[in-house]
């Protein structure tokens, strides 16, 4: 059973790092560089390692893992994208840029691209903010808060089979949501959550948010400890309400965690497959209108009978470029915002 966190709120924090006085703003700025490669603040000159191989030794396992199980397989994909390889072996020949020119003229590819981008554009801002609000809600040590914190994390643990079944049960025409809406006289006929292609897409987004809420709440809880409590107290004295304090103190304080969550969610959104499959079945919604890029890769590239691994690889490369591009764009935008 959930046990209460050890320190009641009345005991002020005495963490190791916090006990070292560093002025709050500079600390926040430092956190602000957390995921970006960049000059590390306070780098006191070029303290080059005397033994040049030392840093490589420490990072070697991570590099090897990323290269052997990520970069190399993906290079193989890039190679395949210039061929007409089939998913199940056989001879492949070099076809130049054919797969890429086909892709540019393929309306289903563009539909999938639109869905993937839309998914990211809608979900990322919500996924950056909602878990943060939730983290603020459970940050304070109230009686029973341990139970709530654990409970909010449970959607992450539910198996996708069960999630699919329960969401279908929620969203069906005679499901819970429609029944409640009808009882409240908000609607007359059922909202077609599971048969309208737009609503399927938005329902899938809801599912993604639901699954990610508790997950990212944890990230934020870890980051909220960085927001100086004195700032909140001072603002409260000045009469700032909860909403104002959230926007003016909490949000700037966890800015870097927000960027991290935004980046991770963005990458995740561009990879969405399961949610669409659960709510729109194997066709990806009526007429395949809800297919995302990974869904499309499965259809055109991985099908063992009619798939074309070459074309599927080209779409994979496009997905990678899109992911990279959007990540860079987001970082650029937030930087300008900062300036």
């Amino acid at each position, binding site marked *: 059973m959930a046990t209460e966190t050890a320190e009641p709120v009345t005991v002020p924090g005495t963490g190791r790092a916090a006990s070292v006085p560093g002025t709050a703003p500079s600390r926040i700025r430092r956190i602000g560089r957390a995921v970006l490669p960049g000059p590390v603040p306070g780098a006191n000159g070029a303290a080059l390692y005397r033994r040049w191989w030392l840093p490589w030794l420490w990072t070697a396992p991570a590099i090897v893992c990323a290269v052997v199980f990520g970069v190399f397989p993906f290079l193989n994909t890039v190679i395949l994208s210039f061929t007409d390889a089939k998913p199940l*072996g056989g001879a492949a020949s070099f076809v130049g840029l054919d797969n890429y020119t086909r892709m540019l003229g393929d309306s289903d590819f563009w539909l999938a691209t639109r869905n993937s981008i839309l998914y990211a554009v809608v979900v990322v801002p919500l996924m950056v903010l909602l878990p943060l609000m939730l983290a603020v809600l459970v940050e304070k040590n109230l009686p029973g808060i341990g139970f709530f914190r654990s409970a909010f994390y449970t959607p992450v643990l539910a198996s996708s089979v069960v999630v699919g079944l329960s969401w279908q049960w929620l969203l069906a025409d005679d499901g819970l949501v429609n029944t409640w809406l009808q009882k409240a006289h908000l609607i007359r006929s059922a909202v077609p959550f599971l048969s309208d292609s737009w609503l399927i897409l938005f329902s899938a987004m809801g599912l993604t948010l639901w699954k990610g809420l508790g997950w990212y709440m944890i990230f934020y809880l870890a980051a909220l400890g960085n927001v100086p409590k004195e700032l909140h107290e001072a603002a409260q004295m000045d009469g700032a309400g909860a909403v104002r304090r959230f926007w003016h103190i909490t949000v700037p304080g966890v800015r870097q965690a927000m960027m991290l969550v935004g980046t991770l969610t963005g990458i995740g959104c561009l990879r969405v497959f399961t949610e669409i499959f659960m709510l729109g079945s194997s066709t990806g919604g009526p*007429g*395949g209108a809800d297919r995302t890029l990974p869904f499309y890769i499965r259809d*055109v590239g991985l099908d063992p009978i009619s798939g074309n691994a070459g074309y599927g690889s080209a779409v994979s490369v496009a997905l990678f470029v899109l992911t990279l591009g959007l990540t*860079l764009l987001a970082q650029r935008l937030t930087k300008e915002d900062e300036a």
Partner: protein
Amino acid sequence: MRAGRLTASVAGIIALTLTAAGCGLSGGGSGGGDGTAGGCKVDKGNVGSGKLTGDVKGQITFQTTNLKKDFGAFFNGVIASFEKAHPGAKVKWIDDPGDNTFTQGTVADAQACTLPDVINVNAPTATALTKAGYLLNLSVKDPQVARPFVPSFWKSATFQDASGSAIHTTLPWYTGGVLLTYNKDLLNKAGIDPAKPPTTLFGLFADYEKVAKAGQGKFYATMANPIWRIPSDFDQMNIKTLSADGKSAVFANDPRTTQWVAWMAKLYKEGAMPKDSLSSSNDPSTLYSQGKVAYGSTNPSFVRFVKQNSPSIYARTAVGQQPYDALGRASAGAPQYISVAATSKHAPVALAFAEYLTNAENQTAWCKDPDVVIFPTTTASLNDPFFQNVTGSDPFSQARKLVADQLKTADTNQTNLSPAVQNAIVGQVQLAMQGKKSPAQAVKDAQAKANELLKQAG
């Protein structure tokens, strides 16, 4: 500044890739003097013409798809008696948990040249593996192999190799059968005589329409997703879905396809199917068990499911013969096959075990298992009194009798569509059902999309 460096790094990676691409293409090809199958090096005897020779000695792997949980004792028994009859032969049984159209593990194994020696495959997997050359051509490797099977079954149990010619790469194993299952009460309410099932699909659709009128949204006839009906309905109506070589779609050339889509659109609009089942992966089982859908799944095992899960609905359930329509005979349902991998290191053992597993004696024994409603594919098994003298009037016994009758003439003539092509066709029909396209347009577009996929597959 930073972005500049990043761009440079990315450019570096791309350059590296292109270099690697050059190497990859020039360095391909496999050496060695033995035969090849699906890009793998294999024993010469496994490919080409000529009977398979060699001792039945060595260890093989036998893979089923999710059967261990229910039938562990049966298969262990078969394996033990095979090993006893063939000293020196050993069989290792593995059971893949997947039950999707394709088990990803099987596909990955094929690519890695590590397929199990004897594999239980369904029609789509057999189609894919035959096309890529991963399976032994059984009628060449053992000219006697056809003997035990029902002739109509054996004749139709072929798959196309890369050149498009039909070859026997599978042994028919068991089949589920196809029939109509329905809720008598709901049919009576709609004014349909449960004792006289229609003989055509459009006749069945007309009955669905009656159910829609009687149900008024309280109950339905069936589920909307056309994925349950494509291509089996086309096959039953004798509409050709694909050309003879399987390389292009031709269903749009038959005017009855458009009529069929128009019927589906009309039924959906009139409420014969729940609106939210248009692109749902749920088959009728759940709603049928709640008495909300009049027609259940066409799989005879479904009757057992209803009996276990909702006894009250089981009491109202009856079964009827499937509409034979233009085909004039029954379809065999989703048949399961046994294949031998061309990459097998002990092909003689594998072939011997495959034939042993599918022989009349073992088939009959398994079909008598009280936990299954499956049907054998050998003549001797079908002649067994167990299938011939079905007694009892409960739906379960009735189902068994009906399917046993069908199987004497049934064949496995189903069109084998790849999941992607099937989804492409289904998707367009869904659009017609939503009223976003005319049936004629949807059929035309479906054919174009299917052709695009078939073309890219070469």
